[in-house]
């Protein structure tokens, strides 16, 4: 007998639970804040085959294939990951699936940990894929579970859209039991699964018929819910904004959209009839507002609420009911900021110091190393999207032959999207230096394994991708392996590589600080040698403090990496003697 027990769950844990209960058999993804923990939590359920893929496109396709093959499947990603997977998505809606296929995409309004704040609901409209919008952990579980049924009912992939505040907030859920479904038979059906133009044209018509049926379903489903209270103002909203609104202005009438695409036109029209004024409360783009306005319904949205950044309970009160603002005291003025920084002992610090010294043009990439962008390291010229370091570096080199152009990316990012541009640099003979900072993990998202670590998501040993052998196979004419903490050697090799004017591939190895197990021997500054030149402070190390008349190393923070000792011209840094 299953006993219903209340539990508090992180949104991402609830997504995993929902997929588990929904009978998912295969799950794949690539780490990306705020989506990462979904797959990590799911990997604890050993009935499910969960795996990290090299990138979101591969994950999406592996999961699609599993669904076509007959097992319920899930793919997870952050919003920008869906750009990578979108090629598969745009046509998978044509073929349909066999067993249920669900993908969870987590948006990041306000860019807490992202390079842009694109609104994935646009993809739902663009690809014509049904999209669910949970507001909290309980709905994350319920909607994900339901998404599998929906997917099978309409033979379509289903998107579940999260945002940072859904994924990274906790709420009460009541876990249920897992559905089990026998593996569906797989039959060869070229007309359905082979999208040559002749078949694709037919499938496009089939898709339109499915959308018509979906439209009927969306009008009926209780996921879209009208709550009539004070009728002077009606708010159409969804996702976590519903929870904000319910908290701060509980008396308003609400149409809560649990389905973000397609929209329930009749239900919206009925709601509009019942209220005096109608507003759409939605984060980032006016996706619903545009659609509703196109039907001629008078509604306001972005003229009231901001189009940029996340909407908070404060924003809602300010814009709809400013008299409800509370008094507060702000003692934060004049405080020094505390931005995130590269950890003490981070293997990236030394290399950035050298690149700065060589005045290289540095095309960076997505990962922890973006923390080296701001002063004092000031290490980056560009950072655009996964893998773009190499290709942008190539382009800049084409524009300015005289610049020493270097691409810098991490091991996981290199595997994700760095291999085709490396092939391009060799094929087209672009003389750039590619530095792969191999810290043995996907660090920024909290340390996930990938093909270069030799371990799977389930912790199994596997074949470890050999970066040097890969570069050699590609035909890179200059390949070297370097120790991230041996600055003189890095400097010398880098100078050689730049002087050679051929494509070069340097792999800089140093384990992520968060992965190190042994206790470090901290360094100390010997005051009689320190002349306060301040060079060590340009490393941006959180263990180094410059007081008025001295430089000090905080022993609890120092990782003993020795980078400051290699930079100090007066050899003032020494290891603390262990008694």
């Amino acid at each position, binding site marked *: 007998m299953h006993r219903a027990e*209340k*539990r*508090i769950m*992180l949104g991402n844990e609830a997504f995993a639970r929902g997929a588990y209960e929904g009978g998912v058999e295969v799950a794949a993804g690539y780490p990306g*804040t*705020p989506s*990462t*923990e979904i797959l990590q939590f799911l990997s604890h359920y050993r009935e499910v085959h969960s795996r990290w893929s090299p990138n979101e496109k591969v994950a999406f396709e592996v999961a699609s294939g599993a669904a076509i093959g007959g097992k319920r499947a899930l793919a997870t990603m952050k919003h920008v990951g869906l750009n990578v997977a979108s090629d598969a998505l745009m046509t998978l809606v044509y073929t349909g699936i066999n067993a249920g296929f669900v993908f969870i995409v987590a948006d990041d309004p306000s860019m*807490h*940990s992202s390079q842009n704040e694109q609104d994935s609901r646009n993809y739902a409209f663009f690809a014509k894929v049904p999209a669910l919008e949970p507001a*909290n952990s309980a709905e994350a579980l319920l909607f994900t579970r339901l998404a599998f049924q929906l997917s099978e009912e309409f033979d379509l992939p289903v998107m579940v859209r999260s945002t940072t*505040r859904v994924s*990274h*907030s*906790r*709420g*009460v859920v009541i876990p249920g039991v897992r559905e089990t479904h026998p593996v569906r038979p797989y039959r060869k059906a070229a007309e359905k699964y082979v999208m040559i133009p002749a078949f694709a044209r037919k499938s496009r018509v089939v898709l339109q018929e499915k959308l018509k049926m979906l439209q009927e379903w969306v009008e009926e489903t209780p996921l879209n819910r009208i709550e009539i209270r004070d009728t002077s103002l009606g708010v159409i909203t969804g996702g*976590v904004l519903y*929870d*904000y609104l*319910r*908290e*701060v202005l509980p008396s308003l009438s609400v149409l809560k959209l649990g389905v973000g695409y397609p929209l329930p036109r009749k239900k919206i029209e009925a709601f509009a009839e019942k209220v005096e004024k109608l507003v759409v409360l939605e984060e980032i783009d006016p996706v619903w507002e545009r659609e509703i306005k196109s039907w001629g319904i008078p509604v306001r949205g972005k003229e009231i609420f901001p189009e940029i950044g996340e909407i*908070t*309970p*404060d924003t809602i*009160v300010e814009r709809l009911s400013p008299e409800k*603002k*509370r*008094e*507060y*005291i*702000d*003692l*934060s003025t*004049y*405080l*020094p*900021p*505390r*931005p*995130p*920084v*590269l*950890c003490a002992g981070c293997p990236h610090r030394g290399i950035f110091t050298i690149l700065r010294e060589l005045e290289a043009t540095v095309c960076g990439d997505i990962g922890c190393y973006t*923390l080296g962008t701001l*002063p*004092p390291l000031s290490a980056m010229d560009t950072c655009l999207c996964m893998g773009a370091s190499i290709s942008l570096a190539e382009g800049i080199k084409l524009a300015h032959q005289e610049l020493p152009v270097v691409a810098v990316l991490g091991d996981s990012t290199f595997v994700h999207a760095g291999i085709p541009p490396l092939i391009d640099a060799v094929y087209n003979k672009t003389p750039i230096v590619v530095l792969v900072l191999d810290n043995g993990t996907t660090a*920024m*998202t*909290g340390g996930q394994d990938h093909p270069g670590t030799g371990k799977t998501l389930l912790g199994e040993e596997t074949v470890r991708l050999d970066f040097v052998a890969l570069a050699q196979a590609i035909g890179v004419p200059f390949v070297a392996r370097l120790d991230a903490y041996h600055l003189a050697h890095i400097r010398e090799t880098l100078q050689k590589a730049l002087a050679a004017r051929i494509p070069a591939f340097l792999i800089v190895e140093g384990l992520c600080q968060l992965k190190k197990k042994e206790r470090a021997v901290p360094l100390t500054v010997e005051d009689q040698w320190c002349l306060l030149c301040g060079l060590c*402070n340009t490393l*941006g190390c*959180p*263990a*180094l*403090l*410059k*007081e008025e008349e001295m430089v000090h190393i905080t022993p*609890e923070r120092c990782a003993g990496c020795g980078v400051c000792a290699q930079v100090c011209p007066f050899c003032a840094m020494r290891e603390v003697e262990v008694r």
Partner: protein
Amino acid sequence: MKGSMVLCGVGGMGILKASEVIAEMLIAQGLFVRQSEVHGMAQRGGTVITHLRFGEEAYSPLLMRGEAEYMIAFESMEALRYTPYLKLGATVVVNSFCLHPPGVNSHRYPTNIPETLQQAGFQVTVIPATEKSLKLGDVRVANMVLLGAFSRIFPIGNKEDWENAIHKTFSGEVLELNLSAFREGRA
């Protein structure tokens, strides 16, 4: 019964774990809890805040400015940074520990933080949580020392309720250490 609080400090100080314990304790009392937290880039030594709301009903995981009745500050200066979330006269439990942001000249770090908070009308309790945790042999349990101190002030939950929540959150060898840190803070 309803209310809200913020927990703030610097990434890596165990703020998430502490808020997990609070949430577990409140759930066990039959209350609903909503809580929001910071993952990803903000954890690399950056400033961190967690919002927590509880009650028979609880919807929004984010608080409004001027709303929180309690604050637990794991680092002194961060208490000042998040005062806008506090209700006038709110209760603040603050760690005496000061962590200078890297690259910032140390004279920019504010002095007399507890006094500043008191003068602004907050009810302030200063706890040498980091010192106490070092005496226990592990700086990582400063969060439980603070939680122990907070548990004396917070009207919900007795010692057993709190310790049950700690049992739910930790397991293995770290459990005992976290329990002793909690007791140290509560004593």
